[in-house]
């Protein structure tokens, strides 16, 4: 199987807030050392641009670092481009009302808006302006709709230009060597549930392959088993007093607080580990499972992305 970053098109998804944007941009940064990469934010909130230089991104890709460009999806612009490229519709100037009407149908008719999104991404891949397109996708529920759109359009739309366009998109999307989905989850119950659900729906409903799982915000393991026994003893009654004695010149209360904080960290980590275990066993063992540690520092934006990229690079053995 091709390495994660050797593909042409990667959709990064997961439950809201798990770190999709962070992981998508970090993967982009990582890959940009050897390939021309485009990171596209599908639901434009400006988060992708904020992760780099903060200058807003638009529908036209903009280079933010060597080998790394960013763009924001805009379905109306995508429609305009589509009309111009494929139908030679001579009304670019007067597209406003048509686009609005189209937007209206699109919001009601399943798959239309989605096909404009996926179509643009596939188009960038096919045209070869970039070696790798990384998509900061919508949250899990929505991404299946996007990836399934070409299939769905095939069922609903019997004739017309859109239908004839879906074939080449499917060829790209359903080829595991070219396209894959990266599901991000945190070590918590609901994100893991959603990741498992998504992994099983992908194959069934879209034919797009699962390229990898990222466990983000993973707390460090504090103690090995033997160390845990020692810690348990310290946490037992009188443990804090003994430790305070050994430290000398300090009262028991703050020592107990420090011990409690460690106990809390151990318990949060433990319940998280159980969920990650569940996730691991729910997907094929050959799907890469990458861990990104919780970043305790104050870093955000570009610095956090760099740190996450380093962690992912290590996991990928790059």
């Amino acid at each position, binding site marked *: 199987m091709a390495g994660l970053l050797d593909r042409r098109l990667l959709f990064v998804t997961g439950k809201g*807030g798990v770190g999709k944007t962070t992981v998508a941009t970090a993967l982009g940064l990582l890959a940009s050392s050897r390939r021309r990469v485009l990171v596209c934010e599908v639901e434009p909130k400006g988060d992708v641009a904020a992760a780099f230089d903060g200058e807003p991104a638009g529908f036209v890709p903009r280079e933010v670092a060597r080998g790394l460009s960013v763009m924001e999806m805009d379905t109306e612009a995508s429609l305009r481009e589509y009309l111009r490229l494929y139908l030679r519709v001579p009304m670019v100037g007067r597209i406003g*009302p048509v686009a*609005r009407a189209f937007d209206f149908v699109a919001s009601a008719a399943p798959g239309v808006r989605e096909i404009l999104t996926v179509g643009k991404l596939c188009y960038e891949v096919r045209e070869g302006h970039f070696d790798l397109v990384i998509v900061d996708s919508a949250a899990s529920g929505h991404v299946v709709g996007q990836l399934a759109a070409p299939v769905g359009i095939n069922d609903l739309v019997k004739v017309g230009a859109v239908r004839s366009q879906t074939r080449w998109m499917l060829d790209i999307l359903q080829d595991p060597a070219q396209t894959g989905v990266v599901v991000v989850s945190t070590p918590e119950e*609901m994100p893991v549930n959603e990741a498992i659900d998504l992994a099983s729906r992908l194959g069934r409903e879209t034919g797009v392959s699962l390229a990898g799982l990222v466990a983000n915000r993973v707390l460090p393991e504090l103690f090995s088993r033997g160390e845990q026994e020692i810690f348990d003893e310290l946490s037992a009654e009188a443990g804090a007093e003994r430790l305070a004695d050994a*430290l000398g010149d300090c009262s028991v209360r*703050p020592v107990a607080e*420090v011990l409690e904080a460690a106990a809390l960290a151990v318990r*949060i980590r433990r319940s998280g580990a159980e969920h990650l275990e569940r996730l691991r066993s729910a997907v094929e063992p050959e799907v890469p499972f990458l861990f990104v540690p919780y970043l305790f520092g104050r870093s955000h934006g570009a610095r956090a992305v760099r740190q996450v990229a380093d962690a992912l690079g290590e996991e990928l053995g790059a």
Partner: protein
Amino acid sequence: MSPRTTSTSLDRLLASREIVVAGGPGGVGKTTTAAALAVMASVRANAKVLVITVDPARRLADALGVGGIGNAATRVPREAFVAAGVQPRGSLFAAMLDTKQSWDAFVRRQAPDKATAERILSNPIYQNISGRFAQGHEYIAMERLYEIHAEGEYDLVVVDTPPTREALDFLDAPRRMAEFFASRLLRWLVAPARSRLVSLASRPFYQVADRILGTQFLEDVGEFFLLFQSMYEGFVARARAVGALLRDEGTTFMVVTTLEAVPAHEAARFVAALAERRLHLGLLVANKVLPASLSDPEAAVVADALQARAAETAARLAEALGLGGDVARLTRVLEEIGRSFSNFELVASRQAELLAEMAKAHEVTATVPHLPGEVSGLGDLLEIGRRLFSAPGGRSSRG
């Protein structure tokens, strides 16, 4: 434990409200907090309380007894409360929101006749739409609330909201729904379907759309809207009524957030949006707050000392613990304890900053601690509920 007799400001607030709508960013604990509020309200007040949850975590669903699918409300047995150590004064019912079922029921109610209802329900486009209509999910949650409120069965209804891309989406869902069905565009779109596409070619939109989508598909869409049009009047009136219910004096909002940059920012926007729309914000809850002890400067000194003097401390402590040979291991344990504290101290101080920031815009009515495990039973919900009913008391403000 028996319910406290002293009433708090939240008791007084709830006494004058019939509906609490829980909103906030994704994954912050809306469902959990809504459940906890309902649980505690039913314990403290002699009231019949309903919580409508959306997509609860497995163990939460089990705790509320709403594991199955479907819309029906079930009572949380009194024994469950007693087993958790409380004697409730009121009663608690829980229901899940089943989007598809709610939409179907809605169509059946609103359609002019049975035949139309059946045609809509079997329309392939409707079937697609009822699942993922833009704002459909948000709207139907409000619609269901309206229905339940109109039936007047409960003294207090706590309603959870679905995860939205934007917490704000559902506030505008009723208005957008009304606009959607009232729009001229819709009528324009539907009109040709009536005259069977003859006049289509003359309309520029159809010229383009036809080439892109194909005539058949457009016809399907047209038929769907034509059918839906029959519900138009009722629908628009209803969407307006739902909007009015949100603004009603008996309705208040609970905004839940965690103290992380992105959710806190979204929650702040939500709070502002409520004010703009003159909607009542009754509770602002900071969830998953780390313990205040993490901000204790004395504890920070201990944590530093553990890291700096791990070996000598371990040597002394090993004797006391009877761990003679394992000083090296103990050293590592002590270092790790100290480092972990320092890490979490950093997170806690960021939480405190965000909390202070949030409090500038609106009073934070409660802070809920980060529970160590998963929120799993009625006991956990009661614990969270207690925090909702007690003042936040600077628990997480920095010492």
